[in-house]
């Protein structure tokens, strides 16, 4: 198989430096994009569950726009169109911004679903106790919603990690770019893509495991308490046998 010949592997290991550089860049972007998308997700998620029509509208526009247009188009816009307005963002910033805002839209939908899943009674009870809106959100609704939100959120996070590969297209210096650049100039496609695949796998797999674990933990339907002992003490079952 000429695609994986030995000399190609040699070339790869001679040039392994850029790969690790790219790995680092990818991790950096993943971290900040993740934080940004979580922050945006919470903010817009709360907004879209609010009673205020205007807030809901703004959030709706944000979500619909970023969910229905390709990430690549958004990133390309930031890269090639903004400079015409004299806004020159660094490539890494574009990565964080583009990927963060895009996934923020998905996260906000998950947050909204989580909030709406909390029984309305909670909010009403809290209002009757004199809680203010922000307090209600912070102390009562969000903590309960968290359980429901966590598994889908980790799913989106996994997608976020994979989508950072988009930077390869705007010469972003991330893992995918380095692999592509190396493969194009040395024609050692097989080894390059294989190694990069493994590196992405290393970043993503732990997250996927975490997601599965969370799904199991929070997805369990609450088991009914075992009341038989209690009932026995009230002598409920014994009546019938008499």
């Amino acid at each position, binding site marked *: 198989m000429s*695609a994986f010949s030995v000399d190609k592997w040699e070339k790869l290991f001679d040039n392994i430096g850029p790969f690790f550089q790219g790995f680092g860049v990818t991790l950096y972007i993943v971290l900040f994009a993740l934080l940004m998308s979580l922050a945006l997700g919470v903010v817009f998620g709360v907004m879209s569950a609010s009673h205020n029509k205007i807030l809901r509208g703004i959030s709706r526009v944000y979500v619909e726009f970023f969910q229905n247009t390709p990430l690549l188009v958004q990133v390309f816009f930031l*890269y*090639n169109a903004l400079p015409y307005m004299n806004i020159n963002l660094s490539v890494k910033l574009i990565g964080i911004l583009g990927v963060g805002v895009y996934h923020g839209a998905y996260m906000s939908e998950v947050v909204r679903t989580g909030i709406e899943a909390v029984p309305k009674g909670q909010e009403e009870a809290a209002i009757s106790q004199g809680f203010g809106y922000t307090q209600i959100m912070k102390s009562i609704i969000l903590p309960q919603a968290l359980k429901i939100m966590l598994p889908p959120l980790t799913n989106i996070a996994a997608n976020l990690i994979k989508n950072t590969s988009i930077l390869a*297209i705007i010469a972003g210096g991330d893992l995918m770019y380095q692999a592509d650049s190396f493969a*194009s100039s040395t024609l050692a496609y097989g080894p390059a893509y294989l190694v990069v*695949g*493994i590196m992405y*796998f290393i970043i993503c797999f732990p997250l996927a495991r975490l997601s599965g674990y969370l799904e199991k933990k929070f997805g369990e339907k609450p088991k009914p308490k075992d009341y038989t002992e209690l009932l026995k003490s009230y002598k409920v079952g014994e009546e019938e046998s008499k």
Partner: protein
Amino acid sequence: MRKKKVQISLLLAFVSFTAALAGCGNSPDDILNKKEVKVGVKNDIPNFGLMNIDTREFEGFEIDVAKEVCKKVFGDDVKVEFEAVTAKTRGPLLETGELDMDAATFTITDERKETYNFSQPYYTDHVKLMVKKSSGIDDFMGLDGKTIGVSQSATTEESLKEAAKEAGITLNFSEFSSYPEIKAALDSGRVDCFSVDGSILSGYLNDSLKLLPDEFSPQEYGIAMAKRNTKLAKEVDNVISDMKENGELDKLMEKWGLNQ
């Protein structure tokens, strides 16, 4: 941990298997018996390989050369199909066998000769530099510390790196997968200079851009074929040689205004 090891090894096996598909093909010399041939050409370079988006036909010097070569090697009744390629895709598609040959401003280098077969050169060009008129850059030295947009898989980066070393300046490079992207990056200011063979640049030149006077490393274009098709390579080489001798090549160059 064990599960992970198993999964990783299965991952490797799967990918190797997929790659094995790349190796499959007919015996190398069967290619000469083909009656339908696929040639990779450029679709965005006026006079060399340009797609007329109205007629959806490819037009250019390289298209004509390829047609002649195919007729002479495979017979007059051969059906030649052209496929658009970029510098990035033209090589691998030869290896997988999807294309039988490339006539796509493919520069012959020693390193490339290890992976592909080339005919003798049918055209010589040079690496050139294109900048905005408004950039104030007048020559190669003016690019010190600036960013140059190049195509992935092109010889440009290597040639420029060498020249920069000799001239004692430093250059930064941004690689892109196609020329329209580099042009967009130049227009938006993401790169200060668009560099590739002069013939390709001429297709993007307009009133607000200019070519710097410097030229680098002669770029000899050859017809590229997969390494395994040695017989085909010989035949194609002979045809090019004939075309040079009997003046056919010159006539085609004249037709497309490429006289050197």
